[in-house]
């Protein structure tokens, strides 16, 4: 039976074997680096070590995401502390030769820059440091300790209390207080309850959840198991996007390992607590990430949202009380339970606690994955951490929140990143996509891109979203083709209002946001596109 003692033994063994080597080369094998051919790099490193006779003195490990995804494949060398980017198999010999000397300058990524220094890692603490396919590595990084301690020493109510104290809010987009949700499910009447992890990550350009699942899957399992204990659930589901084959593979392996160690299944930690987790592959639609549609999809029906209330907390999967949280939300749980809600709440702003992972993309020098404390300003993220725009490009706006979000102009860049501030300027925190737009981009085009996405992803159940998004798309096409009239602008505004107010689910309710925010800050570009006026590309006249 698994116990804290046993965890200690596993951790000890893992650390021993790590210590047996003088060096360790960590190769990122998460999706971004893998697609940049990190596997051949890993193989080449192994071969070079063999050639040099250093096999037993230097370990080559496959790890998860290190952050600077645009510079992949990334590898890190310990204890030397070097981080290398754009490594090719041909570079392996040089890396091996430099193990005991100084890092290879040509490949080194400078980690003293704000991109690395301004990060605060909770969710990604293990990411890029442990082998995601080895439970021993996770345990050696203090994994599953929070779970076993909670099971034996704390009541479910105490666990919930810790989460309430932490001030954690849902990272899936809406920012609903997690502790409050857990309390509702815990109090809901019913002998059968479920916990669901929403890993359907569908926002274009977002890959935060994928990175967590590929880099540290056990952290999510531990968070879910703690949640199940807290709310009284015995079964869990992970609804994972089918287009994430590597995440699925690593989750499967993690589930197997956890079950083998007695960390899932019957009588976990020799207590009365039972919990099993099943993997479900997503239906391939953005709307399946909406909680009621997701539940319908798990039940084997078409993934269509239904009106709420009743909320899943009271009436969820198979009609039972169900807790549904996002991957990143669950990834925060073990540290909160382990180190206390107060520790977590000491980071961030008054109403938004902890950190948030963002996927930085678009016209930016340092693209990739970052985890920052809430309350950091957009300017710090874009210009300090992101290094600003590539030479010759000028900043125009930053888009947050994906198709449900909005474009934030220069004037609001000093805004602290938290749920309320972003909402106040017409965008949302969303799940963490952040796209930097330069002044060569036409904002009507940007709005049309997101509207096209919403139109194609609308499930069609309700009239305002089904017909409204298609009509807004028709109108935006007229603007992009400079065939619009001023009446079209009025119609567009009116449609935005009706679709936002009358749609059934969050997809329709937020679909107008990209249009509304570009209308708010870049109205001139719409006016310029009205038949016979101005230029269409938003440039000032030369």
């Amino acid at each position, binding site marked *: 039976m698994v116990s804290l003692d046993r965890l200690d033994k596993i951790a000890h063994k893992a650390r021993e074997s790590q210590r047996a080597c003088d060096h360790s080369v960590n190769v990122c094998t998460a999706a971004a680096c893998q697609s940049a051919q990190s596997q051949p790099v890993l193989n080449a490193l192994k071969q070079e070590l063999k050639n040099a006779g250093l096999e037993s003195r230097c370990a080559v490990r496959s790890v998860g995401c290190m952050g600077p995804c645009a510079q992949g494949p990334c590898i890190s060398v310990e204890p030397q502390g070097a981080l290398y980017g754009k490594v090719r198999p041909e570079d392996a010999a040089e890396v091996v030769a430099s193990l005991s000397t100084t890092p290879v300058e040509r490949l080194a990524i400078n980690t003293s820059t704000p991109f690395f220094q301004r990060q605060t890692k909770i969710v990604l603490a293990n990411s890029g440091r442990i082998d995601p396919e080895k439970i021993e590595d996770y345990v050696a990084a203090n994994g599953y300790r929070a779970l076993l301690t909670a099971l034996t020493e704390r009541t479910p109510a105490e666990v919930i209390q810790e989460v309430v104290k932490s001030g954690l809010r849902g990272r899936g987009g809406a920012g609903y207080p997690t502790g409050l949700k857990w309390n509702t499910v815990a109090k809901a009447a019913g002998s059968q309850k479920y916990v669901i992890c929403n890993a359907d990550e569908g926002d274009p350009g977002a890959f935060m959840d994928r990175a967590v699942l590929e880099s540290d899957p056990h952290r999510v399992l531990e968070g879910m198991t703690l949640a199940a204990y807290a709310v009284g659930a015995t079964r869990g589901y992970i609804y994972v996007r089918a287009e994430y084959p590597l995440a699925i593979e690593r989750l499967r392996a993690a589930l197997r390992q956890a079950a083998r160690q007695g960390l899932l299944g019957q009588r976990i930690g020799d207590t009365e607590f039972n919990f099993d987790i099943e993997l479900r592959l997503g239906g391939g639609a953005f709307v399946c990430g909406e909680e009621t549609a997701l539940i319908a999809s798990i039940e084997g029906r078409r993934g269509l949202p239904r009106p709420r209330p009743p909320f899943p907390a009271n009436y969820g999967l198979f009609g039972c009380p169900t807790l549904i949280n996002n991957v990143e939300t669950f990834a925060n749980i073990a540290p909160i339970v382990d180190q206390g809600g107060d520790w977590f709440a000491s980071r961030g702003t008054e109403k938004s606690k902890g950190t948030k992972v963002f996927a930085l993309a678009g016209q930016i020098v340092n693209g990739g994955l970052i985890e920052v404390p809430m309350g950091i300003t957009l300017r710090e993220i874009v210009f300090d951490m992101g290094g600003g725009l590539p030479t010759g490009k000028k900043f125009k706006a930053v888009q947050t929140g994906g198709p449900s979000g909005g474009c934030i102009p220069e004037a609001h860049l000093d805004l602290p990143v938290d749920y309320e501030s972003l909402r106040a300027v017409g965008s949302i925190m969303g799940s963490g996509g952040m796209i930097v737009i330069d002044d060569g981009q036409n904002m009507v085009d940007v709005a049309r891109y997101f509207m096209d996405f919403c139109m194609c*992803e609308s499930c069609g159940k309700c009239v*305002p979203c089904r017909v409204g998004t298609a009509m807004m798309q028709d109108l935006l096409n007229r603007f992009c083709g400079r065939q619009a009239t001023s009446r079209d602008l009025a119609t567009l505004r009116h449609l935005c209002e009706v679709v936002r107010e009358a749609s059934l689910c969050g997809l329709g309710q937020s679909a107008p946001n990209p249009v509304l925010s570009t209308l708010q800050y870049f109205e001139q570009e719409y006016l310029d596109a009205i038949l016979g006026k101005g230029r269409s590309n938003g440039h000032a006249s030369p």
Partner: protein
Amino acid sequence: MPPTIPTPHSFTLTIDGQDVTATVGQSILQVANEHHVEIPTLCYLDGLSVWGGCRLCMVQIVGQARLVAACATAATEDMQVVTQSPQLHDYRQTILQMLFAERNHICSICVANGHCELQSWGQKLGVDHIDLPYRYPDLDVDSSHPRFRLDHNRCILCTRCVRVCDEIEGAHTLDVMGRGIQNMIIHDLNEPWGDSTTCTSCGKCVHVCPTGALSEKGTSVAEMVKRRQFLPYLTVMREAK
């Protein structure tokens, strides 16, 4: 001891300022209907499950930021419901306009002219022209069934036919295919209606259809009168059993 039958718990709320009583479990729409407050609906049909898709029955609840669908929201004690306001009227008109412009609704040549719920709500709510961009899609008419016809040009995707076929007839011949604006009512796995091996030709779908999308063959303009008396009868009889 005979089992005690719980008396339905009743409570009061207000609809448009008028005090009304309701029983636990009733939706706002049901309470309003009982008290002769008319709220426009299209996808809702007494006797079928609630869909909540047409959004015509949106009402305002004092103290709540978001509008709610009256068909899908339970009435609760002391709730203050507002069913008429300039804003609601505008949204309802716009939704009706969206439906008129989504496909090809030409009342003057429609078998259901004069017996169409979309048309009559348009008249009642004063929709006398369309401000929105017409879409004019190119859609089929399925006349492969010996007795019935499905004209996609007149379909508003309320899914009443899908629900009656599944919930009342038990055949589940009909369903919806595609996403968003591509939604289409299909028979079986998107086969011609006439080839369906599951359709019992009961005709229930035709009679619950609010428009001329589903009709009996042999009807001409304005001749397709829908008969729905069977639905309350069937549901009441099943419940009574």
